[in-house]
């Protein structure tokens, strides 16, 4: 060690430098803490939160019971029991719809797969529960999540026959109505 290093060691130069750093943080106190339950971080608009089933603006369910979400799901979260609408043999709907959210990894593939945009991802994430069975959601619960997160509902398109499931292919491909 040369003289300079000796002096630095004897005067605790490095330690004092560190203590100066901590003291400056104490004096210029600017916490980066977010008091979580009281204040929340704004989520990005494409946040993939809790899944939900959606309705049209007239209150009818969008889901046509096609099972594509079940096929697309990599974690086998979704189970759909499809059935014909009584007295409307051409139309199908999901009689039962279950989601086991304990397995869901929020990849969003089911939402992408849905041909009628019946599934949506909400901004909800505070779903900690004491009983795992509460995360096994049925259709009513999923619809309720959709109702409380998507108050503005999509219009049922007018040219769509009520008995025909409308398979959408993105908005730009929808034939535009004349004004």
């Amino acid at each position, binding site marked *: 060690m040369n003289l300079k290093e000796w002096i630095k060691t004897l005067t605790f130069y490095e*330690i004092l430098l*560190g*203590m100066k750093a*901590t003291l400056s*943080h104490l004096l210029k106190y600017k*916490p980066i*803490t977010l008091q979580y339950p009281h204040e929340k971080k704004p989520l990005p608009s494409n946040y993939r939160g809790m899944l939900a089933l959606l309705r049209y603006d007239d209150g009818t369910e969008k889901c046509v019971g096609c099972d594509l979400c079940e096929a697309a799901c990599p974690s086998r979260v979704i189970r759909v029991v499809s059935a014909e609408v009584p007295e409307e043999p051409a139309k199908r709907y999901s009689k039962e719809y279950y989601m086991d959210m304990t397995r869901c990894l929020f990849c969003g593939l089911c939402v992408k797969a849905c041909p009628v945009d019946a599934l949506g991802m909400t901004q909800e994430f505070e779903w900690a529960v004491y009983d795992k069975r509460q995360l096994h959601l049925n259709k009513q619960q999923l619809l309720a999540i959709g109702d409380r997160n998507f108050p503005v509902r999509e219009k049922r398109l007018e040219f769509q026959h009520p008995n025909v499931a409308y398979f959408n292919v993105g908005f730009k491909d929808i034939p535009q109505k004349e004004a």
Partner: protein
Amino acid sequence: METGIRLALTLGQIGAVMVAVLLTVALLTLLERKVLGWMQDRMGPMEVGPYGVLQPVADGLKLFFKEDIIPAGANKFMFSMAPILSLVPALIGFAVIPFGPDWTVDVGGVDFKPFVITDINIGVLYILAFASIGAYGIILGGWSSNSKYSLLGGLRSAAQLISYELNVGLSIVGVLLLSSSLSLVTITSAQAGGFWNWYVFGGGAFPQVIAFVVFIISSVAETNRTPFDLPEAESELVAGFFTEYSGMRFAFFFLAEYGNMILVSCVSTVLFFGGWHAPLEILQGPESLHWLTGMFWFTFKVYGFLFLFFWLRATLPRLRYDQLMRFGWKVLLPIALGNIVITSIWAYIFP
């Protein structure tokens, strides 16, 4: 009659000091978390009460109602004794600390010193002796828990306390040479009349600033605080010697740690920073107000040292075990010995 008055006065004094110390401990638990948080750009406890000020109350209640577990295979007697063995020495040291001016009041024919519980002429020795007994509590607590982590924590602490107690003792010797007394009251009154008379600045004799640095480093090690918190290293030993403790027994160890912190702060205030004396004679105020300014300056200095403890904890990482031992034996010990030699020679040449 005289014995009765003496007993009542002393018991009252002990009660007052105990309450003050325990309240300080409660305050320190909050203060430490707050200061540490502020230094690390966090907020510290914020939930209990406004800005988390009731956190010590919540912690105390939690510890009080927690289940008291004695691990299977533990030595029950030793397991119960260890927290008491470490708490009592931490609190008993305050008996000789002078908190204010050395007044003697006559109460019903009894000479009563209101600001020191007992002014024995071996005060420093008494504190050192009880600090050594505190090590037994830690070692026994580690051994009797029947847990590997506890045992390792206890062993580490045994080696650490032995190494660093030596340095504490040797760094004090310079002050004892200058004041030629072991009584803390006499040492304090020898430092009256301005900050240049404090032993850390010498007051004509050899300045004890090196001894003070050695003393502060060693007392951080003695109280098992960061950067010398090897006996309770969280990342290595879970919690060290009190891993298996819970409830009130854990609270006893906790109180002992913070009590020791306050005690070494008090001791370094008295030995090196003039005890209750103000830095300038003017700041001490008139003679009749010495009790107030004395208590104020004493508390101020003690809290300054406690802040230093928090500050060090926020800044420094933990030492490795071999670094700790090398630093204690090969650096601090020769410095402390050299300080004794130089102080004695200086005192001999310039009496």
